[in-house]
């Protein structure tokens, strides 16, 4: 049984490690083999980028060698896939190799496409890449006061990020002693300040308390970087001195080029996480088209279900688990308090008031992540 995992980020790494342990006997007796192909020899802890943008973490703290995170029995190559030939059960890679498989797991993640909004990249700051997060920090440090606008592209990974960055901006300017010189305005695409109703209900009075203004039904359409004005599809605009944006996303180009899914999002079965129409292709993490938050947390829970089912199929010829849509997200409510949201397809989250221990739990998780992707947590 040849299992091929394409993508060495959160989802792919957890699937591969979990499987390597479940199938240790089969791998030893050469009945199973796990190969991972990725686009990089490095693994980035992406949630750390928010801390880089506020000077609380250095970029080098976000990386580990991908190989060091994998069980020794997993064959790992940095050789990105360029062609998916699903009907022939094989992929072709950048280096020209053809790799056949019996079971394929696609875990290629998503990419930011700020260029879909004219002027956004030129006019704004973001923290969704290492380079951007460092640049955003320098812009914040140089800022002496004025209008700060936060705008949100659709779709985006980490749906909690818009509120987290807003709380962090408030705390950052307060610490610098210039909060009274800064006007913060938050703009959100739908008709409440967060898509999760209970998050919106909790965040609204918090925004009122800390003096953050908000506008809903604001889908960023265009940025006039020269005159520093951001315009919405809905016909409103905001004159900013500093614009912070959550970029719109797409799945990876390779997914679009191979016509696996519109926008790079692969049509995926909600509970078995198989690509629609293919019994031996699983999809995990950001690249699914599931109506589930694009988070490391969703990728993690999906990965466990996929690994358990691939292993049980080999051992007893049947899947044993369904994915129930579970997501667990920490919510940083500034630089010293946090809460969390846990939900699935059926049950909305019940939000607790933020507290300091939860913030320290998140800070510890920033380190524990590496244990978690190794499959030890």
């Amino acid at each position, binding site marked *: 049984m040849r299992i091929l995992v394409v993508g060495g980020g959160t989802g792919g790494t957890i699937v591969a490690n979990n499987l390597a342990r479940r199938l240790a006997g089969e791998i030893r007796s050469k009945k199973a083999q796990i190969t991972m192909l990725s686009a990089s020899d490095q693994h980035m802890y992406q949630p750390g980028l928010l801390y880089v943008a506020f000077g609380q973490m250095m970029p080098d703290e976000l990386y580990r060698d991908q190989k060091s995170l994998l069980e020794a029995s997993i064959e790992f190559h940095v050789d990105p896939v360029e062609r998916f030939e699903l009907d022939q059960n094989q992929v072709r890679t950048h280096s020209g190799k053809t790799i056949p498989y019996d079971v394929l797991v696609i875990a290629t993640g998503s990419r930011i496409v700020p260029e*879909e909004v004219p002027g956004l990249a030129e006019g704004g700051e973001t923290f969704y890449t290492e380079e951007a997060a460092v640049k955003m920090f320098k812009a914040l440090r140089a800022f002496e006061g004025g209008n700060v606008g936060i705008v949100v592209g*659709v*779709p985006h990974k980490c*749906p909690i990020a818009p509120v987290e960055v807003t709380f962090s901006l408030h705390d950052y300017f307060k610490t610098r002693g210039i909060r009274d010189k800064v006007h913060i305005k938050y703009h959100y*695409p*739908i*008709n409440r300040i967060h*898509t*999760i*109703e209970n998050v919106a209900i909790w965040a609204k009075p918090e925004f009122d308390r800390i003096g953050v203004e908000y506008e809903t*039904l604001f*889908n960023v359409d265009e940025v006039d970087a020269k005159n520093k004005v951001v315009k919405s*599809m*809905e*016909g409103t605009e905001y004159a900013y001195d500093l614009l912070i944006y959550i970029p*719109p996303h797409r799945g990876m180009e390779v997914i679009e080029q191979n016509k696996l899914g*519109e*926008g790079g999002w692969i049509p995926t079965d909600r509970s078995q996480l198989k690509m629609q129409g293919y019994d031996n292709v699983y999809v995990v993490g950001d690249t699914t088209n599931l*109506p*589930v*938050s694009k988070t490391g947390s969703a990728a993690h829970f999906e990965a466990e279900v996929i690994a358990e089912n691939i292993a049980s199929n080999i051992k007893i010829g049947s899947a044993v688990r369904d994915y129930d*849509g579970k*997501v667990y997200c920490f919510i940083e409510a500034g630089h010293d308090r946090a809460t969390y949201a846990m*939900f699935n*397809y*059926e049950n*909305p*989250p019940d939000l607790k008031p933020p507290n300091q221990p939860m913030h320290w739990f998140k800070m510890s998780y920033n380190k524990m992540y590496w244990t978690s992707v190794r499959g030890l947590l």
Partner: protein
Amino acid sequence: MSETKIVDARNTFCPGPLMELIQYMKRAEVGDTLELLSTDNGTVNDVPEWVNKVGHEMVSSEKIEEVWHIKVRKTK
């Protein structure tokens, strides 16, 4: 050629039905009709509010066996 695409946002709290619809509307062609499926009762008010503000067109909205079917046409 315009066509009707289904956006299945049943049982989702995040990103949620309206966010899903906005995503698909951005990628649709002018003239396309999208049919949003939602189990969230708030959707029946949320969607027209957004559609009217942006200037797209509400085609229909009905509840069939606990699922809202909301059709919207992209006009620009």
